[in-house]
Every structure is written in C-alpha cells, then in structure tokens.
C-alpha cells in the first residue's frame, strides 16, 4: 500500500497575469513531497471548484494579486461546499490588506500569506491542516 499523498490544487483566479508566486509555491510544495495540480492563469471560481472536485484535493491554494479576493474567495468556498467539498482547506497568497484578513478567516480561509512569506511556513501549515 502506498502512503497517502497530500494533493494540492494551485490556481490563479481572476485576471492578473502574475503567476511567479504561484509557481514558487507549487515548486516548494512539490519539493516537500506533495502532489501539486497546477491549473494556470485566469481561472474562474467555477473552473477551480470543478478541478478541485475532479482531482479530489486536500488543499486549494489561490494566488490573487488583483485585489478581487473579497469577491473570489467567498465564491470559491461556496462552490466547494455545494460540491460536498467543505472539508477542503483553502489557502490564499498574494496582496491582501490587513483589514480583510479577519473576514477571510471568518469565511473559512485556512491560511493567508503576503509578500515575503516563507515557503517553509506554508508547507508546515498545509501539513498541519491536512493532518
């Protein structure tokens, strides 16, 4: 029997085209032994929820630098729930103003990371959440 691998969907919702952060995180999670499904730029919340369903992931990591997180995050959480995947942990990385963080956490976002966040912390938090 194979050990259970942590599966993570890394997605970039919305219209900004800056995917370096998402790629750095994808690579770091890979090096931590996780299986990362990378979906690329300009994903709609529907596309992300569908991919999460088909891939049966434990974690969804969103990279948002457009400022649209207060619209995108709740929509994605809602769709995951509608699909029966309310137990999937959602992480956000990008430019998130401090004042939005409490509300995002309240909605059910597990972790939020801004510029300069260490990938070691992200890996640690993902492992902790999935445990």
């Amino acid at each position: 029997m194979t050990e259970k691998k942590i599966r993570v969907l890394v997605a970039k919702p919305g219209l900004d085209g800056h995917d370096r952060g998402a790629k750095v995180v994808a690579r770091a999670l890979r090096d931590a032994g996780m299986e990362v499904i990378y979906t690329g730029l300009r994903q709609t919340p529907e596309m992300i929820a569908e991919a999460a369903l088909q891939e049966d992931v434990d974690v969804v990591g969103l990279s948002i630098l457009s400022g649209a997180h207060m619209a995108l995050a709740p929509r994605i959480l809602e769709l995951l729930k509608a699909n029966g995947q309310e137990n999937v942990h959602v992480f956000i990385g990008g430019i998130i103003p401090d004042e939005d963080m409490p509300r995002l956490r309240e909605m059910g976002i597990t972790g939020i990371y801004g510029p300069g966040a260490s990938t070691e912390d992200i890996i640690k938090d993902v492992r902790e959440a999935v445990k």
Partner: protein
Amino acid sequence: MTNTDSVLEGNRLSLSRLLTQVENDSREGRAALTELFPHTGRAHLIGVTGAPGTGKSSLVNQLTLYYRKQQNKKIAIIAVDPSSPFTGGAVLGDRVRMRDLSGDNGVFIRSMASRGSVGGLAQTTASLAQVFDAAGYDIIIIETVGAGQSEVDIARLAHTTVVVEAPGLGDEIQAIKAGILEIADILVVNKADRPGVENTERALRSTLELAHPTKRIFRHHGQTLTVNVPEVNATLWIPPINKTISTDGTGIPELAGSIEKHAAHLHQSGDWAARDRTRLGSEMEALLREALMSRFLEGVHKKKYEDIIEKVHQRGLSPYEAVQYLLNGK
C-alpha cells in the same frame, strides 16, 4: 447506498474519492474494484504518448472537444506526469492545456503522478481506467509521462496507442530504433505548421515501409523500376500518419477518423478481445507476483533477511546464491 453504487449512478464526488482510494491502492479501493469489475470492458482506451513538448496535452484537449461536439461521447482523461525521484512530490500541469474542457459534465480529467513507476504510467493507472470504464465513460484517454524510447507500458493498457511526434526531433535512425514508434497504432506529426514537418513525415513513412513493405515504384539511375512485394495480409494494420496542429484543431477530425478505423479493425480482426485478454492476464500476473512475494516474506524472519542482504553486501554471497538460500533454507 454504497460508494460504488453512487459511482455507477454518476456521482462525481464519489467517483473522485474512489479514484483516490484506488490510486493509493487502499483496501477500500481494491474492494470497490472488485465490485465494479463486472461493469468494465465497454470503454475504448486510447493512449497518447510521445516525447515531452510534442503537444500531447493540447492534442488531447482538441480531440476531446471534437468527441464532445461531434459525437456527444463521455470522455475521461487520465493525465500522468512524473514524480520527483528524490522527494516523491510532483507538479501535475497537464490541465493547463485543457482549460477548454472545463464546465462540461461529460468530461472528467484526473491528473496522476507516476509515483516511482518508470514505464510512462503509474502503478495504478490501469485500475483508474477500470473505474472510469465502470462509471460509464465511453472513451478513456490516457496521456503518458513525456516519454523517451522505452516508456511503452501504454501499449499494453490501451486499445489504440497514438504516438505524437513533432518536427525537428530526430532523424531516420531514431525512427528505426526499437521502442516507442513500434507501439504506435497511429502516428501523429503535431505542430504541422512548423518548418521541417515534411522531413519528419518522410522519416516516419520510410520507417513504416521498412516494417510493412507495399508495392512501390521508384526511379533508380534514371530508370523507372517497379517492385512488387508479396500480398499484404488483409488483417494487417498499417499505422496511418496524421498531421495535426493542436493549437487550432487542424487535422483533428482526420485523427478521430483514424482512431475509429483502428477500433473497427480491432473488432474485426479479433484483436480487441485478444488485447483485453493479454492485459487482464498481465494484470493478474502482477498481482500474483506481489501476493506470492508477501506470502513468502511472511515466513522469513526480518533479521535473517537483513543478515543475508548484509552478506551479499560483504561479497560473501552472490545475489543468486542468496536467493537460493532464501528459497531452500540452505
């Protein structure tokens, strides 16, 4: 309702969770496979393989779009990418090229890491295909790891193997080596808008002609010669060469036509059943080997086993002697 029932009824979440259990080769996964097995054997399994960067994922994307629009068939895609040999992690990126397929409930894409297998597929890819087959998908497309020359496991699994080439990847000598070209039921020269496409096609064609000679007329030192070769066996399948441009869909209907012809050929010649039998036979053999190995190891003390490995390491025993010793106890 059990999980397998809801998979059979088309519940996508149950299907997805079952795929995970099967991929992890868990007890539940094995039990479900047994329950689903009577429902398998209907789908057409199409393998898509070729070197990295030849455009396999984009081709699968276009082919699936075509099947959805023209034939309304339910399509499952299993996309295999390599796991890191060092950390066991993986980045599975084939979905990036398949974004046109999202929002369609008749398509299910599942990415898979190879998890240490080296034949171009993962250990449990065949089992995942069985689950999709039972769940009522008409066509299951299996995209292999970007393959070199010996990742040929796909030919054992799929009914139809499509080998994707792109211009500029090698000369005729590459093409007559054993391996990946030999397993092709259909050859695709993708990126047919790129320069060099004629050379690639010519190299592939002459390779095919070495294997399947037909009547030929050619000019030699200014004279026209006709060479007749023995009657070609009518049941012989000669791989067609399809040219495609998977960024815009050129050549896709023709490729789908070749695939359909191949399926018809398999049914007509009896190869469909023969392939199915061979595949199930080798699957059973692998399970048997595994079961025998674990049954054997149950009867061997771990300490004794380790001692023997150490003896081999110290060059006191050859590996052959060690195996004899383990089997015979002396």
